[in-house]
Structures are given as C-alpha cells and as structure tokens.
C-alpha cells in the first residue's frame, strides 16, 4: 500500500480536564492513485488526521507511512489545502501560487503554472491582487490553485470547497476530478457534503466522534463521471450512517452540559 495509517491515536492535553482523545486506533491503507474521502461529524478528528498525514503533527501512538517511509516532516511531496485559506497576506495572488515552485522551476515556468491554475479556479484576473482584496471563497480558490500547481503525488484537501457557492463548487469538483484522472495523484479529501464525497471518491471513510474512529469503509463503485440519479441511493445510505453519529455527538454534548 502507498499510504499506511497504522493504529494511529491522537490525544490533546487539556488544562484541568481529562486529555481529549481526538482519534483512536485509526487503521487505513490507501492505494497509490486512490481518491479517499473522510466524512464525519464536526470535531471528529478529520483535520487532525490530515495534519498527521501531512507531517505537521505527530500521532500520540502508531505511525503513518508513505511509500514505506514513516512520515516525520511536512514537505512538498504532500501538498495540502487547509480548511482556512492560509495565504500569505504580504504576497500577491500570483506570488502566493508561485511560492512553493521557487526551488525547482525558473521564473517563466512558475508564472506559467500559476497562470494555468489560476485560470482553472477562475481567478486569473486577480493575479496581481492581494489576499485581503479577495473574498473568503476566492482566497480558498487561490489556495487550491497553489496546492495543485505544486503537482505533488499526494494531495491532502481539508474541506477545500466548503466556502464556495454550489455552482463554483461543481465546476471545481470537475476540475479536481479531471486532474486526478489525468495524473496518478492520490487524494485524501475531507468534506461535509455526502454528495461531494460520493461524486469524487473511490472510498469514503465514515468517522464517529470522540474519540474519532473509522466506522465504515464505504466503496463507491459507480462509473465516472458520476450521474446524480446513480448517486441518490448511496447518498441515503451514507446519510443514515452519518445521522446516527451526529445524533450521538449531540446527545453527548447535552449530557455533558447537563452534568456541569
């Protein structure tokens, strides 16, 4: 397997409370070229898992291996779209997109790549603007262009389309699917949209909350591009599974609030 998550647990220390068990015993193997989505209630540890794959955080126990090498550090071989745009405000849009390309491309190639991906996210007109002049959704699109331009084999995306309107979201889903089909990229994708997960993924990991765990490894065997009518049945199935989880989270919160 290409990406192996072996018995990974992660807890965070909290002041005056029990440590928070964010993830417990996560086992997940992902083949090279697979498109895997993580779906689960808010706070179940999706971002935490992604940042451990990115090498930005260390598991409390267990390990994450990429091509048999344990991941200990972040790097450009694992590009990441964060849940928030994470652009550098002192750089123009173009400079942000070319930033990760400085070391292995000359200026012309860098700018060419930036142009290509900015066009893809419909922001080529804004290449010379600064992030603060863009809306939140536009900033997120720049971050997507930046990650795609890096052209890494492993792409981690944390709710990349969360801040976008339905139409832009659909267009970008298609673009990402196209890039994924044309390259051998492995994509780990976090989303709250069941439909989006079904539309794009080979596999959907459904997670439970606190401690986060994978409760279902759901294979999507529909031919691409996927049609709405074929997806409807799966959508209901996944929805039912998630609903139980989200209900559990709410019950737990009510209980905690009741006890304090």
């Amino acid at each position, binding site marked *: 397997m290409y990406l192996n998550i072996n018995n990974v647990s992660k807890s965070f220390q909290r002041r005056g409370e029990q440590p928070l068990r964010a993830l417990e015993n996560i086992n997940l193997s992902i083949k090279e070229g697979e498109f895997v989505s993580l779906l689960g209630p808010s706070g179940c540890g999706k971002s935490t898992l992604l940042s451990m794959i*990115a090498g930005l955080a260390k598991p409390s126990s267990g390990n994450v291996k990429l091509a048999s090498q344990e991941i200990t*550090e972040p790097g*450009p071989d694992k590009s990441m779209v*964060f849940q928030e745009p*994470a652009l550098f405000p002192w750089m123009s849009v173009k400079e942000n997109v070319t*930033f990760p390309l400085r070391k292995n491309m000359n200026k012309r190639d860098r700018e060419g790549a930036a142009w290509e991906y900015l066009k893809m996210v419909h922001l080529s007109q804004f290449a010379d603007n*600064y992030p603060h002049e863009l809306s939140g959704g536009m900033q997120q699109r720049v971050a997507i262009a930046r990650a795609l331009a890096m052209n890494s084999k492993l792409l981690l995306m944390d709710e990349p389309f969360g801040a976008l309107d339905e139409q832009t979201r659909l267009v970008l889903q298609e673009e990402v699917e196209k890039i994924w089909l044309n390259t051998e990229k492995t994509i780990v994708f976090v989303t709250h949209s069941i439909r989006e997960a079904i539309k794009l993924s080979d596999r959907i990991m459904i997670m439970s909350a606190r401690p986060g765990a994978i409760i279902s490894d759901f294979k999507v065997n529909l031919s691409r591009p996927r049609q709405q009518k074929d997806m409807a049945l799966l959508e209901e199935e996944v929805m039912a599974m998630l609903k139980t989880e989200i209900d559990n989270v709410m019950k737990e919160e009510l209980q905690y609030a009741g006890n304090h």
Partner: protein
Amino acid sequence: MPVIIKRILFFVTLILIWEAVFLLDFWPDSMIPSPLSVANTIYAGFADMTLVYDILASFRHLLVGLTISLVIGTLLGVLLAKVKTADETLGTMILALQSVPSIVWVPLAIIWFGFSEASIIFVVIIGGTFVMTMNMRIGIKNVAPIYLKAARTMGSTGMDLFMKVIVPASIPHAVTGVRLAWAFSWRALMAGEMLSTGPGLGYTLSYASDFNNMSLVIGIIIIIGVIGSIVDQLIFQRVENKILKRWGMEEAA
C-alpha cells in the same frame, strides 16, 4: 464640519484665549509672552537660519541614533524570540531598561562621552532600542501558526522559512516598533540636547531658558510638538495603516 475646519477653529480659539490672558497683564511678559512675539521670534529664527541649523542638527542626531537603535533593536528582538535562554535572562533586563526614562541616561552619557554629539546620540540610541526590541520579539513570536504550517508543507524550512515567511509576517509589529522607537528617540533627543553645547533644538531651548527668552522657549516647544506630530501622523500612521490593511489585520477604512 470637516475635521480641518474644526482644528483651525480650535487653534484660533486657543490663540485668542492666550492673547486675552496676555492682555490682562496679570503676569509679566517674561512669563507669558504674546502670541505675536512668539511668532516673531520663530520667524526671526528661521530668517537668520539659527533655528534651521538647530532643526537640521537635531534631525542628524535623531537619524543616526534612531538608525542604530533600529538595527540593534531588530537583532536583539530576533535573538530574544529565537533563543529561549536569552529571552529568560537578557529579556527581563531589557524589559526593566525599557521602563527607565531616557533622561536618566543623560548624566551617564556626559560622564562617558563628555558634552559631545556622541552623548546625544548615545541617549537617542538607548531611547529607541528597547521598544524596538520588544516589538520585534513579539512580532516574531506571534507569527500565525497557519503561515508556518502552510510554508512547511510547501517545502520552506530553516533560513528560507525565516526570511520569506517569519520576517514578513512580523512586519506589522516591526512597523509599530519603528513608530514607537521614533517617538521614544525624539523625546530622548530633547533630553540629551538640553545638556549639550549645541547646536540642536534642545540646546537652544535650554539656552533660551537661561537667558529668560520666554518667546523662544515657547516657540521651540511649539516647533518640537509640530515636528513630532507631523512625522507621526504623516509618515508613521500612514505606513502603519497601509501595512495593517495589507496584512489583513484591520478592516479597510
């Protein structure tokens, strides 16, 4: 009513009250000179260039001292932010030194450097350095973690990370540091110059006081205040606002 009109009205009123107090003749002219005599003194000073030389000399002291203090302050700030032991030892000392008013350093400077320009510049440097240090330190320590994370996933580490991400991310704090360093140095400069042998605005101020030239005393106080507020508002606040806006730390006005 536009702000500028309000301000003009305010200062006209102030001058009229001043003139009225003067006309009451309650105090001798050597204590309360008329606005006109102050204006004449300022005019004369500019006409015979003495005040111009004073201003130029003061600016030279300030520029040299402030530049040095910014360089030292920046380096010290980086050191404190990056080396924990330095922060825990030198850091506490700098925090203490920051609370010492700069006039306190004047006697020490005179003993070390005599009544020379070096004395003045020394006081100016001390005046600006510590506040720049503390701001630079906070700026570097408070770089948003998300910038560092993003940069690291893009392959930026070590010196590249420091120069390309940490330093630019700390610019808003650095600019505040520069503005405060200027303000502190400007005050320190006057303290240093008052005990010098001239030229300089501070020197002329204490000279005027020795010779009971109240018009000149008030005239120079006005010049010091005007220069201070012009530099602060026209240069530093503008730069600061622009940077804060660009860095997304403030809503566009």
